[in-house]
């Protein structure tokens, strides 16, 4: 019988997997919430404590796919000199834009940002998680894509207007965020035993930018990051929020191997568009299904999702977006079991 990691490897390679693999957390804060501890508190404790919580909760619910590096974006931006605010309910938030001009960009020091105590702690926590894993599950390091990072450094509103008013500045900022994103992933991939990278690009959402801007300002920087990371030969997965059906056809050219879609995306259509070039993941609604329905209903809804997307492989079950601490463990187990028991 294959272990979780091997099943996920099969899905990425478009080989028919033994069963459908499943992941529970996208951003990864859920294990901390349910154990009643915040990232801020954990940062004062040994990294092994965070790894232990993280791994134990994912193991308990039966996840095949685990992300490490929760909070990395905010901690990285803090390392660059930004202000962040810890949240008891989620990952830390960026409190204020760090960048306003090209001179501000030039002053940012990526190597120094990666060497802060908090970033070192984060890396050690990821390394401890790898030790607990013994290559059983598939461990992905999570981080942000260049376009979303640009919005976090500049403020999404200013970035949005700058797409029209100051294109040169946007180009400079994206050049920097390509370096930032790739440097962060490279730094984390120094840890032996990580299986892939999980890139989140929420600001590239189909609810935020047009296909035209997606094509000109989201895809090229993403492709640049993937090219820089290609020699690591790790698996790659991206999650983009909102309905991205109209831009899915642009994903394969980035070199990213799997795309995780929001509940707003029609899986059947997505699979047709991706046409075996990029694998698919998603997309059970984290609120209206996973949080609000009974375990029996969650199981049924998840099976419907699998009936549409899991035939012939190339598919991993994930929630359509990150889950809140209010999702019951009973419902998560129903979600996981639906994948593990699904048959064509």
């Amino acid at each position, binding site marked *: 019988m294959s272990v979780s990691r091997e099943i996920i490897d099969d899905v990425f390679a478009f080989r028919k997997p033994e069963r459908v693999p499943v992941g529970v957390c996208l951003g990864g804060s859920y294990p901390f919430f349910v154990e009643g501890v915040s990232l801020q508190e954990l940062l004062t404790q040994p990294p092994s404590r965070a790894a232990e919580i993280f791994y134990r909760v994912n193991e308990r619910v039966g996840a095949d796919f685990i992300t490490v590096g929760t909070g990395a974006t905010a901690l990285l931006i803090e390392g660059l000199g930004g202000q962040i605010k810890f949240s008891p309910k989620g990952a830390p938030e960026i409190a204020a834009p760090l960048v306003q001009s090209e001179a501000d960009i030039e002053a940012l020091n990526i190597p120094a940002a990666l060497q802060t105590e908090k970033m070192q702690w984060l890396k050690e926590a990821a390394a401890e998680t790898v030790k607990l894993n013994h290559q059983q599950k598939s461990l992905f390091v999570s981080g942000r894509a260049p376009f979303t990072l640009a919005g976090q450094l500049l403020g999404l509103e200013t970035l949005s207007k700058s797409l029209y008013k100051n294109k040169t500045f946007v180009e400079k900022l994206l050049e920097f965020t390509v370096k930032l994103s790739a440097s962060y992933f490279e730094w984390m991939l120094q840890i032996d035993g990580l299986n892939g990278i999980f890139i989140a690009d929420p600001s590239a959402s189909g609810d935020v930018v047009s296909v035209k801007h997606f094509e000109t300002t989201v895809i090229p920087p993403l492709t640049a990051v993937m090219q820089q990371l290609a020699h690591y030969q790790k698996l790659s997965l991206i999650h983009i929020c909102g309905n991205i059906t109209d831009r899915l056809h642009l994903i394969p050219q980035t070199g990213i191997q799997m795309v995780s879609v929001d509940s707003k995306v029609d899986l059947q259509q997505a699979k047709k568009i991706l046409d075996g070039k990029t694998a698919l993941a998603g997309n059970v609604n984290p609120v209206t299904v996973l949080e609000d329905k009974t375990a029996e209903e969650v199981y049924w809804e998840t099976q419907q999702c699998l009936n549409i997307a899991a035939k012939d492989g190339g598919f991993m079950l994930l929630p359509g977006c*990150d889950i809140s601490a209010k999702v019951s463990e009973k419902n998560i187990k129903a979600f996981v079991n639906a994948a593990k028991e699904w048959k064509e």
Partner: protein
Amino acid sequence: MTKTKHELYALLSDAVVGMDEDTAAALSREAIGAGYDAYETIEQGLAKGMERAGKLFDESEYFVPELLMCADALNVGLDILRPHITTEERSEKHRIVIGVIEGDTHDIGKNLVKLMLSAAGFDVIDLGRDVPPSVFVERAIKEEAKIIMISSLMTTTMDGMEETVQLLHEKGVREKFKVAVGGGPVSSGFAEKIGADGYASNANQAVKLANELAQSK
């Protein structure tokens, strides 16, 4: 030749939809120079343009950057025209308290809703982002608002919306306010579940909802 006011209003509306700040400014000055009523120019020109932009947003022709650019053109015109509005034209407006719920700093959606509501003639009090439920309630009472609008982009912070509704009940003021919710992970089912009065999926829908709630008892 001087444009008729209807021609000018149409061009002003086009300037907003076309994200053209310079033309919006020039036409707004032209309206003042021609002696056209400033309030009417805003309503029939600038606000109409923003309404059209909202429809394009609804139809996925425009996205956040385009709507923000339209809003910039609108604001350039408003800055020129507002000082010329007479006191009697400043009619009673429905007041809305708006903000992003505690724990969430994603405010672009809220800012778009605020822009659209202001363009539609509502008096909008912006509480900003990361706003605790108690602050929504206190400010709504203090400002004598008619509607409380709460946004959340994260599944992890949506609970604060329910807390706000519960707090209104606890303080015995639930009936005084209409509560509307919105944001990426929010749905009409969620709004119903937490006892809110309405849900809007985007900025344009939020204006329609606000109009309905403002008219309801």
